């Protein structure tokens, strides 16, 4: 209870965190209401596929029919960004969820047992951490064949060592506590000790930081999509929509900003999505900082 009050107090001290919460809630609502806000046309098989209005490559400015206009290939921008919100949550949750599962499992094993197992797991994480993450993710996506699932898998492969080390560190901090010794003394199995005694007392900082990392994960996924290694053409995905706009950055000489909407709108969606998570994350970094007094 005091812990909760401390958190709320810290959050109140940092009003920007509420802006962050508001932004994230807005995106959650958009994702839930996607079928209503941008209803797929009839006989549309996959709702994640953006409907096209013709095949001309030149984008069309916002109009009554297309609120945000159409991008290259006549894909509706409004439909794309709305359903793209769902794709973003899908990628973010899938990657963070998997990475946490792997991180908690390997991190607990390494941290609790120590010794040679710890050494092996840590040296393997060293190898994965020896690459600039985006470059390794790029190579893996190419190897798996470009697709959204490859991007998710590549980001999991790149991120798991980070969380494994994080969880291991947390576990090391409580491994020698008296209550753990006590549990060991009455003969509890290692699995039971880890699940009942060690994890509940050490894991929350990692959980919170991980969930706030969703923004960063979505940013990396969008970058891979932008490079042309992500979702198939026409899939509602923010990164890909920016890739579409690449050829339309500069308009005709008499109106150089003619196609501003193709790049600006999907970019703002990514920016605000990531900003929401980062605003909240900034407040939580202070909360989780053990150097701050908990009164």
């Amino acid at each position, binding site marked *: 209870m005091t812990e909760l009050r401390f958190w709320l107090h810290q959050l109140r001290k940092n009003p920007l965190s509420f802006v962050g919460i508001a932004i994230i809630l807005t995106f959650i609502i958009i994702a839930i209401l996607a079928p209503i806000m941008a209803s797929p046309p009839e006989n549309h098989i996959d709702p994640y596929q953006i409907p096209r209005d013709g095949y001309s490559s030149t984008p069309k400015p916002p109009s009554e029919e297309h609120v945000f206009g159409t991008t290259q290939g006549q894909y509706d921008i409004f439909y794309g960004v709305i359903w793209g919100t769902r794709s973003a949550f899908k990628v973010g949750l899938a990657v963070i969820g998997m990475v946490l599962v792997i991180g908690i499992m390997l991190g607990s094993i390494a941290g609790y047992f120590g010794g040679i197992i710890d050494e092996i797991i840590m040296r393997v994480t060293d*190898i994965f951490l020896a690459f600039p993450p985006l*470059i390794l993710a*790029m190579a893996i996506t190419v190897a798996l064949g470009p697709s959204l699932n490859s991007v998710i898998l590549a980001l999991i492969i790149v991120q798991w060592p980070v969380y494994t080390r994080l969880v291991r560190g947390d576990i090391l901090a409580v491994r020698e506590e008296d209550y753990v010794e006590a549990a060991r003394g009455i003969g509890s199995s290692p699995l039971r000790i880890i699940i009942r005694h060690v994890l509940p007392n050490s894991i929350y900082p990692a959980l919170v930081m991980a969930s706030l990392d969703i923004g960063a994960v979505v940013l990396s996924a969008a970058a891979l999509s932008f490079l042309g290694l992500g979702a198939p053409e026409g899939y509602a995905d923010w990164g890909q929509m920016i890739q579409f706009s690449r050829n339309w950055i*500069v308009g005709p000489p008499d109106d150089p*900003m003619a196609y501003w909407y193709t790049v600006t709108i999907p970019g703002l969606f*990514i920016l605000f999505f990531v900003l929401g998570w980062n605003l909240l994350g900034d407040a939580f970094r202070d909360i989780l900082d053990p150097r701050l007094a908990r009164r």
Partner: protein
Amino acid sequence: MWGGLSLELRAYIVRRLLLLIPVLFGVSLLIFAILQSFSPIERASLYVSDPRQFANLPAIIEKYGLDQSVWVQYGTWINQIFHGNLGWSKVVSQPVTDAIMNFLPATLELALFATPLIILGGIFLGSKAAAHKDRTIDHATRFGAILGWSLPTFWLGLMLLMVFYGYFSGLLPPERLSTEINILVNSDSFSRYTGLNVIDAILNWNGRVLLDSLRHLVLPVITLTVVNLAFIMRLMRSSMLETLGKGYILTARAKGLDENAVVNKHARRNALIPVLTVSGYIFASIANGVVITETIFNYKGLGWWAWQSAVHLDIASVLGFALFNGILFVLTNLIVDLFYTRIDPRIRLGGQVQ
């Protein structure tokens, strides 16, 4: 450099160098594992050193044993790498090793401008923010940092292009040089000493080339700088805040030193140590950023080449690039760690090394 080192420190350096071997071995294993997801025909392109060999790939598969056991293959593969053969880059029609060497100067030029901006700018703004904690400048830099690392790099670059290339009709263009300057640079009257346009222009005493290359560098450098600057700035701020709370700062203030001397002399130097330890991270972040930045601006360097190779599923180039970056990153971290032992007096004077 051995003279002043304690025994403990020497042992540490030796251990650190020995540790390099298993990590590099692991790095090569990981790249090799990724490689195994391809068919022997696709893998054969890694052993090609001349385009004519593509006509007879089965011969290559036979020669390098690409249908044999994994360990035999690893042996032949690593042997090729030690002989400097990383395969054939189809995108630019030259060996991967040559491609890396040819594209490296362009990327170095970009990093040469961005890195000092990131580090010096971050240190300056971060210590300013810490010295004025909870005042306007602190809040402004805090918000700027959060906004900065929420910005999708690729979007920022395109928006900058839209404004400075589109709206201001060609003021700051993409690519590395304009067409006519490019012809001039590659003609006989211009000698290429380093491959870095700015430096070559100065050495050739050619103002037009210098101006043109600088014009093309502004936007990529800004794009590469923004995100990383935010990171260093925040790190410097928190490190500085911690230092400012230390006893010796209180002493310095108590003996009546003026605030500037306290911040600049006593606090900043000590606060710099954590910033130095993340230089390895900065390298990785710039390497990541280079791929995206060069892609946006069609700036033909290593990152652009890697992107082209990835899009064309040119596996030899992508893996060659990844391996190159992995090795560079490992070496950077090694140098940072060794350098760290030199500058931190607690370690230099024989304290415990972790």
